[in-house]
Structure formats: structure tokens, C-alpha cells
């Protein structure tokens, strides 16, 4: 923690220290209050909603508790004879979300790590420009970027235009409204999230170590595998988490590129709060998603602290 450096002026004892702490709490109160009211608090309310009975027209019957919401995440009841089956539709969507997020992370690694390495090995002055070129899409509206990739991959888009024009295929390949479209879209929109942290850790690599590796007759592959990648590991882990988490909760990209059929978790949640009118189920799925994300973050934090001990 950077605040570890002592600041003697703000280290009074006894009553003065008490007053100082109270003042600091007062100063941070507005920010904490806003986040409590419009971010953290509602999550608890949602947890409460997940254990209530669903209302007929959306919402819930307040005060009537029911486990139907959580039950519905994994099982479904036959409307005629009450037999239980696994909720295939939900499990398919869970599975699709996890697989697509992993594939997105993998593709982002494949493109992002070499890109970060490329930028980190440029001379200092041009490095800033390359970095800036990564930052611009990073801060550009996600919807607009999704829209942009849609124009490229749709049937009349330039990708199919080029494929047909070059005679590789005779008629346009249907990419839109498939899982592939979602994958391409998510790689496109989340790639900068991989490059930036990987770059941050590659920038710090001491290339004398790499040189030492070559001095000891290591080949390029060995240097990459034994020196560069281990040193870049904190960034690679951070980048993977930063790509995986928003992919898992993606809503806009699958909605625009996947059409109605290829839903991901985000769209399944929306469905329950919209036409599905099953708020408790929607709340339960949301909490499940949040739990998975928290788990991934926990892995990251544990990894980051381990990395800190080495470095």
C-alpha cells in the first residue's frame, strides 16, 4: 500500500487521532452513501427478492417467501404433471456463456500478449503512440464498437465482400446471429482490456535477463517460456480476469450480434425481468453470476499477492 510511508503530521494520538478519524469518515460519507444507495444496497434488496414468490405481472409478492426462484435456476417443473427436469435451456445458456468467455479470453491472450510485447519493445517515444492507439478503442462506446464490428461481419459487410470477391467462398458466410459473431464481437470489444495490463507488466521487464538467457544458449522459445512469460505473469492474469469477467456478464454484444436465439447470461437475466416476468428467478441468476465473478476476482487477488512476494 502506497500510504505505508509515514506521514507524521497526521499521526496524532488519543483524542486528536479520534477526531481526525471522525473527520475522515465524514469527508468520505457522501461517496459511500451514494454507492450504498445506488450500487451496494440494491444488491441486498435483490438477494431478498430472489427468495420471494413471483408476482403475476412481474415484480414479487412482497413478504411471501418462496424457493421457486432459486429452484428455477437449475430445474423446471412440468406444467401438466409436476415432474422435475433439469432446466436445459438455462444450463445451455450457462454453458454457452462460460465457453464463449473462455474462448474470448484465450483469443484475447493470443492477440493481446504479442501486441503488448511489441509495444513494450518499441523505443520510448513511439511506445506512447502505440499505447494511445490501444487506449482510444478502450474508451470508445461499447455499443458503437459492437455496431462497427457488426458492419464488418454482416452478410453484406466488407468481410464477406472480400471473401466473395477473392473467390474464397461463392456466397456470403452467415456470421451474424451465431455464437461465432458473439465471439468475434467480444474479442473485438474487450481486447484492449488484455493489452493494457500485460503491457504494464512487460514494460518493467529487465531485458538484461533476456540477454542472460541467450548468453546461456537458450533459444527464443525457451527465453519466451522461461523468462518473458513468467515475468509478465501478473499482467497476463490481470488481463485474463479483466476480459473474462465482462465477457461472462456481457449483455449488449450478444444482444446485437447474437440475435434473439443465442443468449448469454446477461440476456437471460433481462428476459426474466422483461417478458419472462419472473423476477425472483432473474434475481437468483444475477446472484449466481455475481458469485462466479467474485470467485474469479478472489483467484486474481490471491495470485496478485503471490506475485507481489516474488517481485
Amino acid at each position, binding site marked *: 500500500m502506497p500510504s505505508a510511508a509515514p506521514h507524521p503530521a497526521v499521526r496524532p494520538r488519543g483524542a486528536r487521532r479520534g477526531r481526525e478519524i471522525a473527520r475522515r469518515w465524514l469527508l468520505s460519507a457522501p461517496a459511500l452513501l451514494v454507492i450504498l444507495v445506488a450500487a451496494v444496497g440494491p444488491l441486498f434488496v435483490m438477494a431478498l427478492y430472489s427468495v420471494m414468490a413471483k408476482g403475476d405481472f412481474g415484480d414479487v409478492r412482497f413478504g411471501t417467501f418462496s424457493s421457486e426462484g432459486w429452484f428455477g435456476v437449475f430445474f423446471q417443473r412440468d406444467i401438466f404433471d409436476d415432474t422435475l427436469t433439469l432446466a436445459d435451456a438455462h444450463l445451455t445458456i450457462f454453458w454457452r456463456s462460460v465457453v464463449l468467455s473462455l474462448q474470448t479470453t484465450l483469443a484475447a491472450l493470443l492477440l493481446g500478449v504479442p501486441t503488448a510485447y511489441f509495444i513494450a519493445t518499441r523505443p520510448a517515444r513511439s511506445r506512447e503512440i502505440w499505447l494511445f492507439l490501444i487506449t482510444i478503442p478502450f*474508451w470508445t462506446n461499447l455499443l458503437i464498437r459492437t455496431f462497427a464490428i457488426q458492419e464488418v461481419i454482416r452478410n453484406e459487410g466488407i468481410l464477406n465482400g472480400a471473401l466473395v470477391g477473392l473467390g474464397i467462398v461463392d456466397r456470403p458466410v452467415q456470421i451474424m446471429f451465431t455464437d461465432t459473431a458473439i465471439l468475434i464481437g467480444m474479442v473485438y470489444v474487450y481486447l484492449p482490456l488484455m493489452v493494457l495490463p500485460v503491457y504494464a507488466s512487460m514494460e518493467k521487464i529487465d531485458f538484461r535477463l533476456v540477454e542472460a538467457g541467450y548468453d546461456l544458449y537458450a533459444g527464443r522459445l525457451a527465453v519466451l517460456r522461461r523468462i518473458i512469460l513468467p515475468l509478465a505473469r501478473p499482467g497476463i492474469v490481470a488481463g485474463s480476469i479483466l476480459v473474462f469477467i465482462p465477457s461472462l456478464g456481457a449483455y449488449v454484444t450478444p444482444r446485437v450480434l447474437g440475435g434473439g436465439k443465442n443468449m448469454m447470461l446477461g440476456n437471460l437475466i433481462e428476459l426474466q425481468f422483461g417478458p419472462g416476468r419472473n423476477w425472483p428467478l432473474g434475481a437468483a441468476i444475477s446472484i449466481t453470476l455475481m458469485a462466479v465473478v467474485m470467485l474469479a476476482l478472489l483467484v486474481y487477488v490471491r495470485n496478485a499477492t503471490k506475485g507481489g512476494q516474488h517481485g
Partner: protein
Amino acid sequence: MAEFRARRGSNDNRRARPAPRRRTGFDVRAMPGAGTLAVATFFLLYIPMATLVVFAFNSGQSLSVWEGFSFRWFVSAWHNAAIQEVALRSLLIAVVAATCATIVATMAALATTRTAPYPGLTFKYAFINQPLMVPEIVTAVALLIVFSRLKVWTGYSGLGYLILAHTAFCIPFAYLPIRARLESMDLTLERAAADLYAPPLAAFRRVTLPLLKPGILAGFMLAFVISLDDVVITEFVKSGGQDTLPTYLLGQLRRGVSPDINAVATMFLALSAVVVTIYFLINRRRV
């Protein structure tokens, strides 16, 4: 890249040379393929955006056949009353939410930096960064649940809900650069001011605040861009007739693409790029 390969081919077996001063000899930094994949990445990142921008200037209806250069879609988008309305609403929300977020984040940053650890400090860090850790869709439906009930109870369904929600998720973005800036400032100048009998408020106004300004500006701009870009939370919190530019575009996309949208998206893109460039320049000057 050709140079890259050639060097590799001719020098692969010449190892063990000190770091090259001249660009001949063995380059320890070279890694075959990295350049190719990096170029592929930059193409992937920029071709879609370039396509979008180029076809916004197309004179025809088509989004794939170039028919000549024209500003007509910009003109028609600019005069489109619906687009004007949602764009102004987006700007209003972004300005108000980013301002509120920056003010409370500055206070929070002052309260959480330059101090010995005190009870609750870690809790505050976690709490302030919480909006970054939860998937947006989850926050969005949680807000939908709470705000829809509040709207019924209070009878108020104005822009306040959107502004409150935007302020909340903008706080961590405003907080991070301000905190970073504060942590790079030590307390000597403030102490000097106190030695010269400056009351705490005067010292804050004349010493701390001017020094903190670049951080505050950077924080405000990040918050502004984040608020302007938000789709998911807005989509779930808004009442009828409260579309912002992104939610309006999302609705339009369902009806199919048109060059109008390209023009709007291009203007939006230009705005983001300008803000990011300013942010980049501020940050660079700081070093």
C-alpha cells in the same frame, strides 16, 4: 516487418552479444511473430471503426457500396429532433453525474490518502471500488428492482434516478486518478502553509486544490466518458421517454442499420476520442 524477419534469418546463430547500440547485430528484444500478431491486432481494432466512419460520409443509402463523398447524413442526423433530444439528455446526465461524482470522489480521496492506516480504511477502498467489481447487468437489474418500487411509492419518476445511478458507477473512475495524484503529493507544502498561519480551509484552497487540479480534471473526464457511454444501467433504470443517446441507438439497431446511425456514431466516436486525447495529454504533462 520485412526487416524484422531478415534480421532474424541472418543473425539467429549469433548469440551472446551485449545489448545492441546500433540496429545491427542480435536484437534480444526481437520475438518472431510478435510484430505480425501486433499488426493483426491493430487492424482488428481499427478496421471496423474506420468502416463505420467512412460509410458515414457515403452519399448513398448503402453501408457497403461507396457512392461518393457527402455530409448529408450528418446534416440529417443533426436536424433529427429525436436525436437532438436524446443527445442533449445524455450530455445533461453526464455533466451532472460526472460533476457530483468528482466532488464526492475528491472528498473521499482526501479522506483515504496521506494517512496512517485507520480502522475502516480498507473497507472504504473496497466499497468505493465496488461498482467496478459487479457485472453491469447485475447492478442494472438490482437498480430496476429498487427504483421501480421507489417510483411507485414516491410518484417521482424524473431524471433523478438516472443521475443517481450514473453518479454511483462514476465514483470509482473519478476516484482513481484523484487518489493517484494525491498520493504523489507530500504534505510539506500544506505544513508550510500551516506554519505561515494559514487556516486549514485557506491552506486547502490555496495549496492543496491547485496541486490536485490535474487529478480532478482527469477524474472528471473519465467519469464523463463513462457516463456518456453507459448503455446497460440506463436501459434498465430509465422511465418511458428517458432514452439517452446509447439506449436510443440500441433501439434503432433492432430496426436495422442506416447511414444516419453511422453519422451519429461517428460524432459520438469523435467526442470520445477528443476527451481521451485531452486526458492523455494531461496525464503526460504530469510526469
